[in-house]
Protein backbone atom coordinates (compact mmCIF):
# COMPACT_ATOMS: atom_id res chain seq x y z
CA UNK A 1 0.00 0.00 0.00
CA UNK A 2 1.45 3.36 -0.96
CA UNK A 3 0.59 6.82 0.33
CA UNK A 4 -2.12 8.55 -1.74
CA UNK A 5 -1.95 12.31 -1.51
CA UNK A 6 -5.33 12.94 -3.12
CA UNK A 7 -7.00 10.57 -0.71
CA UNK A 8 -5.21 12.21 2.21
CA UNK A 9 -6.45 15.66 1.19
CA UNK A 10 -9.95 14.34 0.64
CA UNK A 11 -10.27 12.94 4.19
CA UNK A 12 -8.51 15.83 5.92
CA UNK A 13 -11.68 17.92 6.56
CA UNK A 14 -13.40 14.96 8.25
CA UNK A 15 -10.35 14.33 10.40
CA UNK A 16 -10.14 18.00 11.38
CA UNK A 17 -13.79 17.84 12.39
CA UNK A 18 -12.89 14.82 14.52
CA UNK A 19 -10.00 16.75 16.04
CA UNK A 20 -12.37 19.57 16.95
CA UNK A 21 -14.59 17.09 18.80
CA UNK A 22 -11.52 15.74 20.58
CA UNK A 23 -10.53 19.25 21.63
CA UNK A 24 -14.04 19.97 22.89
CA UNK A 25 -14.10 16.76 24.88
CA UNK A 26 -10.70 17.54 26.37
CA UNK A 27 -11.59 21.07 27.39
CA UNK A 28 -14.94 20.09 28.90
CA UNK A 29 -13.51 17.06 30.71
CA UNK A 30 -10.59 19.05 32.03
CA UNK A 31 -12.90 21.77 33.34
CA UNK A 32 -14.86 19.07 35.15
CA UNK A 33 -11.67 17.43 36.42
CA UNK A 34 -10.28 20.74 37.70
CA UNK A 35 -13.47 21.72 39.52
CA UNK A 36 -14.23 18.28 40.95
CA UNK A 37 -10.61 17.66 41.89
CA UNK A 38 -10.49 20.94 43.80
CA UNK A 39 -13.63 20.11 45.76
CA UNK A 40 -12.31 16.64 46.56
CA UNK A 41 -8.92 17.96 47.63
CA UNK A 42 -10.40 20.56 49.97
CA UNK A 43 -12.90 18.10 51.48
CA UNK A 44 -10.17 15.54 52.08
CA UNK A 45 -7.95 18.20 53.61
CA UNK A 46 -10.68 19.29 56.02
CA UNK A 47 -10.99 15.72 57.34
CA UNK A 48 -14.78 15.80 57.64
CA UNK A 49 -16.13 12.54 59.11
CA UNK A 50 -17.69 10.15 56.58
CA UNK A 51 -17.39 12.53 53.60
CA UNK A 52 -13.59 12.77 53.60
CA UNK A 53 -13.09 8.98 53.90
CA UNK A 54 -15.62 8.53 51.11
CA UNK A 55 -13.54 10.68 48.78
CA UNK A 56 -10.40 8.89 49.88
CA UNK A 57 -12.04 5.70 48.66
CA UNK A 58 -13.22 7.48 45.52
CA UNK A 59 -9.67 8.49 44.64
CA UNK A 60 -8.49 4.96 45.41
CA UNK A 61 -11.16 3.41 43.21
CA UNK A 62 -10.78 5.74 40.25
CA UNK A 63 -7.01 5.52 40.25
CA UNK A 64 -7.04 1.79 40.80
CA UNK A 65 -9.27 0.78 37.89
CA UNK A 66 -8.66 1.16 34.15
CA UNK A 67 -10.28 4.06 32.37
CA UNK A 68 -11.71 1.64 29.82
CA UNK A 69 -13.49 -0.32 32.55
CA UNK A 70 -14.96 2.87 34.04
CA UNK A 71 -16.11 3.89 30.60
CA UNK A 72 -18.00 0.65 30.10
CA UNK A 73 -19.49 0.81 33.60
CA UNK A 74 -21.11 4.12 32.75
CA UNK A 75 -21.93 3.06 29.21
CA UNK A 76 -24.24 0.31 30.48
CA UNK A 77 -26.27 2.77 32.59
CA UNK A 78 -28.98 3.16 29.89
CA UNK A 79 -29.99 -0.40 30.70
CA UNK A 80 -30.92 0.93 34.12
CA UNK A 81 -32.85 3.92 32.81
CA UNK A 82 -30.12 6.56 32.71
CA UNK A 83 -29.69 7.91 29.20
CA UNK A 84 -26.85 10.20 28.26
CA UNK A 85 -25.39 10.92 24.86
CA UNK A 86 -22.14 9.09 24.23
CA UNK A 87 -20.42 12.49 24.02
CA UNK A 88 -21.64 13.47 27.47
CA UNK A 89 -20.85 10.03 28.87
CA UNK A 90 -17.33 10.37 27.57
CA UNK A 91 -16.87 13.85 29.01
CA UNK A 92 -18.14 12.78 32.43
CA UNK A 93 -16.09 9.59 32.64
CA UNK A 94 -12.93 11.30 31.48
CA UNK A 95 -13.51 14.25 33.82
CA UNK A 96 -14.29 12.06 36.82
CA UNK A 97 -11.30 9.86 36.08
CA UNK A 98 -8.92 12.80 35.95
CA UNK A 99 -10.47 14.47 38.99
CA UNK A 100 -8.88 11.73 41.11
CA UNK A 101 -5.50 12.74 39.76
CA UNK A 102 -6.01 16.51 39.89
CA UNK A 103 -7.25 16.09 43.50
CA UNK A 104 -3.87 14.64 44.41
CA UNK A 105 -2.08 17.46 42.62
CA UNK A 106 -4.17 20.08 44.43
CA UNK A 107 -3.48 18.32 47.70
CA UNK A 108 0.25 18.57 47.16
CA UNK A 109 -0.19 22.25 46.36
CA UNK A 110 -2.31 22.92 49.45
CA UNK A 111 0.09 21.08 51.72
CA UNK A 112 2.93 23.08 50.20
CA UNK A 113 1.49 26.36 51.49
CA UNK A 114 3.51 27.54 54.47
CA UNK A 115 1.95 26.99 57.89
CA UNK A 116 2.67 30.62 58.68
CA UNK A 117 0.13 31.64 56.05
CA UNK A 118 -2.64 29.81 57.89
CA UNK A 119 -1.46 31.33 61.17
CA UNK A 120 -1.56 34.83 59.69
CA UNK A 121 -5.17 34.32 58.61
CA UNK A 122 -6.05 33.21 62.14
CA UNK A 123 -4.26 36.21 63.61
CA UNK A 124 -6.29 38.48 61.30
CA UNK A 125 -9.53 36.59 61.98
CA UNK A 126 -10.06 36.10 58.25
CA UNK A 127 -13.14 33.97 57.56
CA UNK A 128 -12.47 30.35 56.58
CA UNK A 129 -13.86 30.77 53.11
CA UNK A 130 -11.77 33.83 52.40
CA UNK A 131 -8.70 32.07 53.75
CA UNK A 132 -9.15 29.36 51.14
CA UNK A 133 -10.12 31.51 48.18
CA UNK A 134 -7.81 34.45 48.69
CA UNK A 135 -4.80 33.11 50.57
CA UNK A 136 -4.33 29.35 50.36
CA UNK A 137 -5.63 28.36 46.93
CA UNK A 138 -3.95 31.14 44.91
CA UNK A 139 -0.61 30.10 46.39
CA UNK A 140 -1.33 26.39 46.05
CA UNK A 141 -2.47 26.64 42.42
CA UNK A 142 0.50 28.72 41.36
CA UNK A 143 2.92 25.91 42.10
CA UNK A 144 0.86 23.22 40.39
CA UNK A 145 -0.23 24.93 37.16
CA UNK A 146 2.53 23.23 35.09
CA UNK A 147 1.57 19.81 36.50
CA UNK A 148 -2.07 20.42 35.64
CA UNK A 149 -0.99 21.49 32.17
CA UNK A 150 0.72 18.15 31.66
CA UNK A 151 -2.44 16.35 32.75
CA UNK A 152 -4.36 18.34 30.14
CA UNK A 153 -2.04 17.06 27.41
CA UNK A 154 -2.28 13.52 28.70
CA UNK A 155 -6.06 13.78 28.73
CA UNK A 156 -6.08 15.04 25.15
CA UNK A 157 -4.39 11.82 24.08
CA UNK A 158 -6.38 9.60 26.44
CA UNK A 159 -9.62 10.91 24.94
CA UNK A 160 -8.98 8.54 22.00
CA UNK A 161 -10.28 5.81 24.27
CA UNK A 162 -13.81 7.22 23.85
CA UNK A 163 -13.56 5.48 20.48
CA UNK A 164 -14.74 2.44 22.44
CA UNK A 165 -18.14 3.95 23.18
CA UNK A 166 -18.62 5.27 19.61
CA UNK A 167 -17.97 8.96 20.27
CA UNK A 168 -17.07 10.38 16.88
CA UNK A 169 -13.83 12.08 17.82
CA UNK A 170 -10.53 12.03 15.95
CA UNK A 171 -9.68 8.38 16.55
CA UNK A 172 -13.10 7.09 15.63
CA UNK A 173 -13.23 9.28 12.52
CA UNK A 174 -9.93 7.83 11.35
CA UNK A 175 -11.13 4.31 12.02
CA UNK A 176 -14.44 4.84 10.23
CA UNK A 177 -12.71 6.20 7.14
CA UNK A 178 -10.30 3.27 7.22
CA UNK A 179 -12.95 0.59 7.36
CA UNK A 180 -15.10 2.32 4.77
CA UNK A 181 -12.34 2.83 2.19
CA UNK A 182 -10.17 -0.14 3.18
CA UNK A 183 -7.29 2.29 3.54
CA UNK A 184 -5.89 2.74 7.06
CA UNK A 185 -2.47 4.21 6.31
CA UNK A 186 -3.56 7.78 5.50
CA UNK A 187 -6.30 8.31 8.15
CA UNK A 188 -4.21 6.96 11.02
CA UNK A 189 -1.03 8.71 9.92
CA UNK A 190 -2.85 12.03 9.68
CA UNK A 191 -4.60 11.41 13.00
CA UNK A 192 -1.26 10.69 14.66
CA UNK A 193 0.15 13.86 13.11
CA UNK A 194 -2.74 15.94 14.40
CA UNK A 195 -2.43 14.51 17.93
CA UNK A 196 1.28 15.21 17.83
CA UNK A 197 0.96 18.80 16.61
CA UNK A 198 -1.57 19.73 19.27
CA UNK A 199 0.14 17.96 22.16
CA UNK A 200 3.60 19.21 21.21
CA UNK A 201 2.41 22.82 20.89
CA UNK A 202 0.65 22.52 24.23
CA UNK A 203 3.75 21.12 25.88
CA UNK A 204 5.68 24.18 24.73
CA UNK A 205 3.03 26.35 26.38
CA UNK A 206 3.32 24.34 29.58
CA UNK A 207 7.09 24.84 29.51
CA UNK A 208 6.54 28.57 29.40
CA UNK A 209 4.14 28.35 32.31
CA UNK A 210 6.76 26.40 34.24
CA UNK A 211 9.17 29.26 33.73
CA UNK A 212 6.64 31.80 34.77
CA UNK A 213 5.50 30.02 37.92
CA UNK A 214 8.78 28.50 38.96
CA UNK A 215 9.71 29.62 42.48
CA UNK A 216 11.80 32.72 41.89
CA UNK A 217 13.81 32.42 45.11
Amino acid at each position, binding site marked *: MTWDNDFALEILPDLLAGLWVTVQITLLSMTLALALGLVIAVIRYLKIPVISPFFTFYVLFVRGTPLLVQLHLVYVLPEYGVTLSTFLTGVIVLGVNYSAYTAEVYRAGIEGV*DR*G*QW*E*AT*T*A*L*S*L*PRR*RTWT*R*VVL*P*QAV*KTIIPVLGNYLIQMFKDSAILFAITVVELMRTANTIGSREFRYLEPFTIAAGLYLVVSYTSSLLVKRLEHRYAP*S*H
Partner: protein
Amino acid sequence: MPPVTEHPESSGVSASSAPGPMLSFENVSKSWGDNHVLRSLNFDVAPGEKVSIIGPSGSGKTTILRVLMTLETPDDGLVVVDGEPLWDARGGVTPKETKQMRETRRKVGMVFQSFNLFPHMTAIENIMEAPVQVLKMPKGEARERAESLMEMVGLSQHLDHKPPQMSGGQQQRVAIARALAMRPKILLFDEPTSALDPELIGEVLAVIRDLAHSADMTMLMVTHEMRFAEEISDRVVMFDSGAVVEQGPPGEIFKHPTHERTRLFLRAVLER
Protein backbone atom coordinates in the same frame (compact mmCIF):
# COMPACT_ATOMS: atom_id res chain seq x y z
CA MET B 1 -22.35 33.42 78.54
CA PRO B 2 -22.27 37.20 77.95
CA PRO B 3 -23.89 38.49 74.75
CA VAL B 4 -21.59 38.75 71.77
CA THR B 5 -20.56 42.27 70.84
CA GLU B 6 -21.50 42.95 67.24
CA HIS B 7 -18.89 45.58 66.53
CA PRO B 8 -15.93 45.05 68.80
CA GLU B 9 -13.85 47.38 66.67
CA SER B 10 -16.05 50.34 67.58
CA SER B 11 -15.03 49.93 71.20
CA GLY B 12 -11.39 49.83 70.26
CA VAL B 13 -10.40 52.99 72.10
CA SER B 14 -13.06 53.11 74.79
CA ALA B 15 -11.72 53.41 78.29
CA SER B 16 -14.83 51.96 79.84
CA SER B 17 -13.96 48.31 79.31
CA ALA B 18 -14.00 45.92 82.23
CA PRO B 19 -11.72 46.93 85.07
CA GLY B 20 -8.84 44.63 85.92
CA PRO B 21 -6.17 43.12 83.73
CA MET B 22 -6.24 43.30 79.93
CA LEU B 23 -5.30 39.65 79.82
CA SER B 24 -4.81 36.94 82.35
CA PHE B 25 -3.71 33.33 82.52
CA GLU B 26 -5.13 31.29 85.41
CA ASN B 27 -3.44 27.95 86.06
CA VAL B 28 -2.85 27.43 82.36
CA SER B 29 -1.01 24.27 81.36
CA LYS B 30 0.12 23.00 78.02
CA SER B 31 2.36 20.12 77.14
CA TRP B 32 3.62 18.28 74.11
CA GLY B 33 3.97 14.75 75.36
CA ASP B 34 6.46 14.93 78.22
CA ASN B 35 7.48 18.47 77.37
CA HIS B 36 5.56 20.84 79.68
CA VAL B 37 5.71 24.17 77.88
CA LEU B 38 3.32 25.85 80.33
CA ARG B 39 3.12 24.64 83.95
CA SER B 40 0.02 25.95 85.67
CA LEU B 41 0.88 29.47 84.58
CA ASN B 42 -0.59 32.46 86.38
CA PHE B 43 0.14 35.69 84.62
CA ASP B 44 -1.62 39.07 84.26
CA VAL B 45 -0.98 42.04 82.02
CA ALA B 46 -2.54 45.43 82.78
CA PRO B 47 -4.16 47.60 80.07
CA GLY B 48 -1.51 49.55 78.19
CA GLU B 49 1.33 47.67 79.82
CA LYS B 50 4.39 46.77 77.75
CA VAL B 51 5.76 43.43 78.82
CA SER B 52 8.83 41.60 77.49
CA ILE B 53 9.23 37.89 78.01
CA ILE B 54 12.77 36.59 78.06
CA GLY B 55 14.21 33.16 78.62
CA PRO B 56 15.99 30.29 76.92
CA SER B 57 14.66 28.73 73.70
CA GLY B 58 12.06 26.07 74.25
CA SER B 59 11.06 27.55 77.60
CA GLY B 60 7.45 28.11 76.49
CA LYS B 61 7.66 31.88 75.92
CA THR B 62 6.25 31.72 72.44
CA THR B 63 3.50 29.35 73.56
CA ILE B 64 2.09 32.15 75.75
CA LEU B 65 1.65 34.29 72.64
CA ARG B 66 0.35 31.41 70.54
CA VAL B 67 -2.31 30.55 73.11
CA LEU B 68 -3.42 34.20 73.15
CA MET B 69 -3.61 34.21 69.35
CA THR B 70 -5.57 30.92 69.47
CA LEU B 71 -2.88 29.16 67.48
CA GLU B 72 -2.52 26.66 70.36
CA THR B 73 -5.14 25.19 72.63
CA PRO B 74 -4.33 25.01 76.34
CA ASP B 75 -4.71 21.66 78.08
CA ASP B 76 -5.98 23.18 81.30
CA GLY B 77 -6.79 26.53 82.90
CA LEU B 78 -8.49 29.77 81.90
CA VAL B 79 -7.32 32.56 79.60
CA VAL B 80 -9.23 35.84 79.80
CA VAL B 81 -8.85 38.75 77.39
CA ASP B 82 -10.40 42.12 78.20
CA GLY B 83 -12.82 40.56 80.65
CA GLU B 84 -14.00 37.82 78.30
CA PRO B 85 -12.89 34.20 78.33
CA LEU B 86 -10.75 33.27 75.34
CA TRP B 87 -10.02 29.71 76.41
CA ASP B 88 -11.82 27.90 79.21
CA ALA B 89 -10.01 24.62 79.70
CA ARG B 90 -10.56 24.43 83.45
CA GLY B 91 -10.62 20.88 84.71
CA GLY B 92 -8.80 19.71 81.61
CA VAL B 93 -11.86 20.13 79.37
CA THR B 94 -10.79 20.57 75.76
CA PRO B 95 -12.12 24.02 74.81
CA LYS B 96 -13.95 24.50 71.53
CA GLU B 97 -13.56 27.29 69.03
CA THR B 98 -16.73 29.27 69.63
CA LYS B 99 -18.18 32.39 68.07
CA GLN B 100 -17.47 34.28 71.26
CA MET B 101 -13.87 33.11 71.26
CA ARG B 102 -13.48 34.36 67.68
CA GLU B 103 -14.96 37.74 68.65
CA THR B 104 -12.57 38.01 71.60
CA ARG B 105 -9.65 37.00 69.42
CA ARG B 106 -10.18 40.11 67.28
CA LYS B 107 -8.84 42.19 70.14
CA VAL B 108 -5.49 40.47 69.73
CA GLY B 109 -3.00 40.99 66.90
CA MET B 110 0.29 39.28 66.27
CA VAL B 111 3.59 40.01 64.55
CA PHE B 112 5.40 36.82 63.60
CA GLN B 113 9.06 35.98 63.56
CA SER B 114 8.90 35.12 59.84
CA PHE B 115 6.48 37.98 58.95
CA ASN B 116 3.93 35.66 57.26
CA LEU B 117 2.83 38.30 54.80
CA PHE B 118 0.71 37.06 51.89
CA PRO B 119 3.35 36.91 49.14
CA HIS B 120 0.92 37.19 46.20
CA MET B 121 -0.63 40.42 47.46
CA THR B 122 0.91 43.88 47.45
CA ALA B 123 1.85 45.52 50.74
CA ILE B 124 -1.28 47.64 50.76
CA GLU B 125 -3.50 44.68 49.89
CA ASN B 126 -1.97 42.77 52.77
CA ILE B 127 -2.96 45.56 55.12
CA MET B 128 -6.45 46.15 53.66
CA GLU B 129 -7.49 42.51 53.53
CA ALA B 130 -8.67 42.01 57.12
CA PRO B 131 -10.28 45.44 57.67
CA VAL B 132 -12.34 44.98 54.50
CA GLN B 133 -13.18 41.30 55.00
CA VAL B 134 -13.52 41.11 58.78
CA LEU B 135 -14.47 44.61 59.91
CA LYS B 136 -16.46 45.22 56.69
CA MET B 137 -14.76 48.58 56.27
CA PRO B 138 -15.44 50.32 52.92
CA LYS B 139 -12.51 49.87 50.55
CA GLY B 140 -11.77 53.57 50.24
CA GLU B 141 -11.55 54.03 53.96
CA ALA B 142 -9.48 50.86 54.38
CA ARG B 143 -7.09 52.09 51.74
CA GLU B 144 -6.69 55.49 53.36
CA ARG B 145 -5.96 53.88 56.70
CA ALA B 146 -3.55 51.41 55.12
CA GLU B 147 -1.72 54.28 53.43
CA SER B 148 -1.33 56.18 56.67
CA LEU B 149 -0.12 53.03 58.42
CA MET B 150 2.43 52.50 55.65
CA GLU B 151 3.54 56.08 56.17
CA MET B 152 3.84 55.47 59.89
CA VAL B 153 6.21 52.54 59.31
CA GLY B 154 8.15 54.59 56.76
CA LEU B 155 7.14 52.69 53.64
CA SER B 156 5.01 55.12 51.66
CA GLN B 157 7.11 54.39 48.58
CA HIS B 158 6.33 50.67 48.72
CA LEU B 159 2.52 50.53 48.69
CA ASP B 160 2.30 48.37 45.58
CA HIS B 161 5.35 46.22 46.14
CA LYS B 162 4.91 42.55 46.84
CA PRO B 163 6.67 40.98 49.83
CA PRO B 164 9.23 39.00 47.79
CA GLN B 165 10.46 42.31 46.35
CA MET B 166 11.05 43.76 49.81
CA SER B 167 13.80 43.32 52.38
CA GLY B 168 13.11 41.43 55.58
CA GLY B 169 13.03 44.65 57.57
CA GLN B 170 10.52 46.18 55.19
CA GLN B 171 8.37 43.05 55.26
CA GLN B 172 8.30 43.05 59.03
CA ARG B 173 7.27 46.70 59.06
CA VAL B 174 4.41 45.90 56.66
CA ALA B 175 3.46 43.03 58.96
CA ILE B 176 3.29 45.42 61.90
CA ALA B 177 1.10 47.79 59.88
CA ARG B 178 -1.11 44.86 58.90
CA ALA B 179 -1.61 43.87 62.53
CA LEU B 180 -2.33 47.49 63.53
CA ALA B 181 -4.97 47.84 60.81
CA MET B 182 -7.27 45.66 62.91
CA ARG B 183 -6.92 48.08 65.83
CA PRO B 184 -6.02 45.39 68.34
CA LYS B 185 -6.11 46.12 72.06
CA ILE B 186 -3.26 43.69 72.54
CA LEU B 187 -0.35 43.35 70.14
CA LEU B 188 1.90 40.31 70.38
CA PHE B 189 5.43 40.24 69.01
CA ASP B 190 7.03 36.84 68.58
CA GLU B 191 10.77 37.44 68.26
CA PRO B 192 10.09 40.11 65.62
CA THR B 193 13.74 40.61 64.69
CA SER B 194 15.12 37.08 64.97
CA ALA B 195 14.77 36.32 61.27
CA LEU B 196 16.39 39.58 60.17
CA ASP B 197 19.88 40.35 58.98
CA PRO B 198 21.67 42.38 61.67
CA GLU B 199 21.66 45.61 59.66
CA LEU B 200 17.84 45.47 59.28
CA ILE B 201 17.00 44.97 62.95
CA GLY B 202 17.26 48.67 63.82
CA GLU B 203 14.52 49.86 61.46
CA VAL B 204 12.04 47.33 62.88
CA LEU B 205 12.92 48.11 66.48
CA ALA B 206 12.46 51.82 65.73
CA VAL B 207 8.88 51.19 64.61
CA ILE B 208 8.11 49.08 67.69
CA ARG B 209 9.71 51.71 69.92
CA ASP B 210 7.49 54.47 68.50
CA LEU B 211 4.49 52.25 69.03
CA ALA B 212 5.46 51.52 72.61
CA HIS B 213 5.87 55.21 73.38
CA SER B 214 2.72 56.47 71.73
CA ALA B 215 0.05 53.79 71.77
CA ASP B 216 -2.07 52.92 74.76
CA MET B 217 -2.13 49.45 73.34
CA THR B 218 -1.08 46.53 75.50
CA MET B 219 2.09 44.96 74.14
CA LEU B 220 3.55 41.57 74.86
CA MET B 221 6.88 40.74 73.27
CA VAL B 222 9.06 37.67 73.21
CA THR B 223 12.56 38.81 72.35
CA HIS B 224 16.26 38.16 72.56
CA GLU B 225 17.04 41.88 72.18
CA MET B 226 17.81 42.52 75.84
CA ARG B 227 18.75 46.17 75.56
CA PHE B 228 15.62 46.88 73.58
CA ALA B 229 13.48 45.02 76.11
CA GLU B 230 15.08 47.06 78.87
CA GLU B 231 14.39 50.27 77.03
CA ILE B 232 10.72 49.87 76.12
CA SER B 233 9.24 47.54 78.74
CA ASP B 234 7.30 48.38 81.86
CA ARG B 235 7.97 44.87 83.06
CA VAL B 236 10.28 42.03 82.11
CA VAL B 237 9.34 38.44 82.73
CA MET B 238 11.99 35.74 82.98
CA PHE B 239 10.51 32.47 81.82
CA ASP B 240 12.00 29.00 81.99
CA SER B 241 10.72 25.43 81.72
CA GLY B 242 7.10 26.50 81.39
CA ALA B 243 7.01 28.80 84.41
CA VAL B 244 7.80 32.38 85.46
CA VAL B 245 11.16 32.44 87.23
CA GLU B 246 10.95 36.09 88.24
CA GLN B 247 9.55 39.36 86.97
CA GLY B 248 9.80 43.04 87.64
CA PRO B 249 10.79 46.42 86.20
CA PRO B 250 13.56 46.05 83.61
CA GLY B 251 16.07 47.87 85.81
CA GLU B 252 15.68 45.29 88.53
CA ILE B 253 15.65 42.20 86.35
CA PHE B 254 18.66 43.22 84.29
CA LYS B 255 20.74 44.85 87.05
CA HIS B 256 19.81 42.85 90.12
CA PRO B 257 18.31 39.51 89.19
CA THR B 258 17.47 37.54 92.30
CA HIS B 259 17.44 34.09 90.76
CA GLU B 260 20.50 32.15 89.77
CA ARG B 261 18.66 30.94 86.62
CA THR B 262 18.12 34.54 85.46
CA ARG B 263 21.72 35.49 86.22
CA LEU B 264 23.07 32.58 84.17
CA PHE B 265 20.74 33.33 81.29
CA LEU B 266 21.52 37.05 81.19
CA ARG B 267 25.25 36.39 81.39
CA ALA B 268 24.98 33.97 78.48
CA VAL B 269 23.00 36.31 76.21
CA LEU B 270 24.69 39.57 77.11
CA GLU B 271 28.20 38.19 76.69
CA ARG B 272 27.61 36.89 73.19
